[in-house]
């Protein structure tokens, strides 16, 4: 058991370090790299909670696909606008209040009450076969809605480019 605790401690430490780095880098691409590491770490956290499929999908979809979209968006800007970002400390203070408060609250509650038995990793087990059957047989409406949500950006993409073309030609 002690190895698992050490692993979780290291993981939490990495989360903390890269979150701080993401705040304090002055260049947007470096900040982006920190977020990439955080996404991969989140996949590892899922893996730690025995949800291996979720972890793999997290790395493939978020770290592999969505963040590449972000990166291509960053490349649309010239270099001067990416570097020497000013950290707005006043804004940071307000926006970071909620997560920090939540973190302290959770830490205190864990210290006072201890982790409930049912949240310990060995009691959580994701059987993908069961989940897949549940998802596709019972919650088919969610899949149906997801299909529309996913096809929306494709149509929006064309509309967006059509407008770009008009504004570019005029």
């Amino acid at each position: 058991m002690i190895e698992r605790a050490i692993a979780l401690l290291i993981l939490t430490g990495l989360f903390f370090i890269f979150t701080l780095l993401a705040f304090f880098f002055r260049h947007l691409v470096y900040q982006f790299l920190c977020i990439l590491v955080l996404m991969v770490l989140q996949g590892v956290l899922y893996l730690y909670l025995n949800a291996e499929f979720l972890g793999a999908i997290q790395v493939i979809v978020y770290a592999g696909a969505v963040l590449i979209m972000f990166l291509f968006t960053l490349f649309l800007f010239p270099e001067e606008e990416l570097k020497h970002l000013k950290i707005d400390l006043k804004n940071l203070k307000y926006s970071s209040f909620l997560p920090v408060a939540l973190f302290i609250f959770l830490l205190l509650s864990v210290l006072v009450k201890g982790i409930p038995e049912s949240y310990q990793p060995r009691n959580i087990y994701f059987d993908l076969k069961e989940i897949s059957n549940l998802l596709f047989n019972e919650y088919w409406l969610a899949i149906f809605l997801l299909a529309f949500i996913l096809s929306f950006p494709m149509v929006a993409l064309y509309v967006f480019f059509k407008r770009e073309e008009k504004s570019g030609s005029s």
Partner: protein
Amino acid sequence: MERPDVFVPSSYFPILIMLIVAFIFGVGGLIFGALVRPKYYYSLKLIPYECGNEPSGLPWQKITIRYFPIAILFAVFDVEVGLLYAWCYGFSEMKALGFFIMILFLIIILAGFFYDLKKGLLDWQRGI
């Protein structure tokens, strides 16, 4: 329900070791190379290559937006492939409803995709 007491990450532990070994291999090669290779730098050697001309400005100016639709379509299809894998894994206990909802899902996604293809979003010769 009774669950087996398994800790899945322990089977992934060798991958972490492999990652570390691969990293050490790469860095070790570079460090060994740094010990033996010559270092005669002068400023002419350090300017970026531009076919022999003086480089005209930095490269990070403005990149065509052509790559952007590819990234978005890739994200959409990645989500689709993830769902498809989950569906494949539980296929043998799937009911007819589960079977046909996936077919419907694929048809809706493909309708959006063929719309983009038809409108020429992925034709590179045509200016958008």
